[in-house]
């Protein structure tokens, strides 16, 4: 029924920009406009000891269909050239891919203008606040995107900032976003922030002592992130195909593409 639906199976209003007017018994016709699509996919970001890691799967979906198996979700931001080789910030976007792309382009343009105007690259802290204001400026027609910003702070510590679609943001140690966020986030809580991990023999009930938190080394985070995605792919149909991982350190940004299950 939905005119341009790419997903006849669901037959709902979810994936279409325009629907045929619905005729009703009382003679009125109802018109609708659906400007958003959910393109699935999942992102993960972890701030570690002197680095920040941003990862996202590369599958893009519409309902049960796969649009492409390779649509990157993690971007370099704020370089002085189109190749972004001197970029100092990473942005991951998941949700509605077109909005994510538009948001990335806009933030990048703003970072470039900032460089011209102020003669220095934007700090992650400044960029984080700016991204928040960009999102909030579209408070009543939002970018349908869960964004995560990553980089190194002024003390070269890994920094991860997570956002809701209208600009609420927070600096965190780790965050999962998108389709499988609810599968991955509890895993990260436990493995990165050591939630529900107590020191054995420290007591019972309230006397239990929490395991002390410390930023994780890079080797450990790499394994953690890959495991998180492998698990998500197993249980979520919108996640899969390949894993794009970017790591930002004081020496620059490295990018890797790892295989994921394609079923």
């Amino acid at each position: 029924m939905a005119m341009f639906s790419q997903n006849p199976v669901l037959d709902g209003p979810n994936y279409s920009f325009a629907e045929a007017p619905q005729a009703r018994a009382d003679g009125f016709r109802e018109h609708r406009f659906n400007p958003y699509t959910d393109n699935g996919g999942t992102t993960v970001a972890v701030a570690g000891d002197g680095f920040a890691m941003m990862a996202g799967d590369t599958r893009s979906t519409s309902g049960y269909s796969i649009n492409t198996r390779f649509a990157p979700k993690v971007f370099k931001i704020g370089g002085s050239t189109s190749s972004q080789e001197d970029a100092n910030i990473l942005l991951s976007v998941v949700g509605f891919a077109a909005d994510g792309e538009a948001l990335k382009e806009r933030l990048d343009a703003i970072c470039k203008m900032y460089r011209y105007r102020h003669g220095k690259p934007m700090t992650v802290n400044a960029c984080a606040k700016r991204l928040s204001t960009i999102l909030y400026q579209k408070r009543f027609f939002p970018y349908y995107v869960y964004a995560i910003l990553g980089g190194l702070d002024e003390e070269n510590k890994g920094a991860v900032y997570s956002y809701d679609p209208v600009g609420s943001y927070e600096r965190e140690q780790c965050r999962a976003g998108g389709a499988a966020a609810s599968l991955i986030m509890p895993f990260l809580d436990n493995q990165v922030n050591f939630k529900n991990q107590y020191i054995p023999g420290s007591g019972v009930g309230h006397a239990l002592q929490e395991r002390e938190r410390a930023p994780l080394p890079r080797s450990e985070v790499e394994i953690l992130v890959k495991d998180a995605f492998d698990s998500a792919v197993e249980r979520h149909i919108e996640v899969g195909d390949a894993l794009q991982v970017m790591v930002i350190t004081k020496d620059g940004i490295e990018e890797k593409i790892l295989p994921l299950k394609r079923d």
Partner: protein
Amino acid sequence: MFMARSEYGKFFSDRLRVHVEGSTFSPEGRLFQVEYSLEAIKLGSTAIGVATSEGVVLGVEKRVTSTLLETSSVEKIVEIDRHIGCAMSGLQADARSMVEHARVESQSHAFNYNEPLRVESCTQAICDLALRFGESADGEESIMSPLWRRPAHCRLRRGRPQLYHAEPSGTFYRYDAKAIGSGSEGAQAELQNEYHKSLTIADAETLVLKTLKQVMEEKLDAKNVQLASVTKERGFRIYTDEEMAEVVGRLPAN
């Protein structure tokens, strides 16, 4: 005699002509309004800024035109943000509108980027506005404002104290020490002799007042001059009457 407006106007689109018609060009292609404003500054009261490694000191001469004038109402040093102050000479009304612009720019930057605006960027923002005085929306009667101002500045959290001078023409330069206004020639020469890199804030206060004293027509006292400073610890601050009296008392008598 150099009224070239209609001839110039023909070569531009309607939109551009507003800009062209509002201004008058000299044969060298300069705008008279800008030239006049540069001259006008030389008639304004003297203002001095000195940058040290500890902070920046600004000083201005208040021309007390009447014994009935409440001297505290003469405002020639203003705060733009906690870390940026500005001393001005020339048309106060024009300066005020530029200060307003700079304040908005500074707040907007802090809002959008969660960091203080850099002094150079602030000066640039002011200079952007300086040129726009010549092309106001109504076009026809707009006048390039004779205005002069010098933002003097301060330090950002991790920045160094900086002093900038913005001309009405829209250009700006950074200085260690700069004098503007009617006494600027003599004052600048004095600053040139006395300035050195290891000045303290207290040294700078005395240097500013001593220099003002030499170029002022009236006899300098705690009422007809004003000082302000921008330091890392206290940000921008205009000196109180007591502090003014203290610095004036420090000056060598002659």
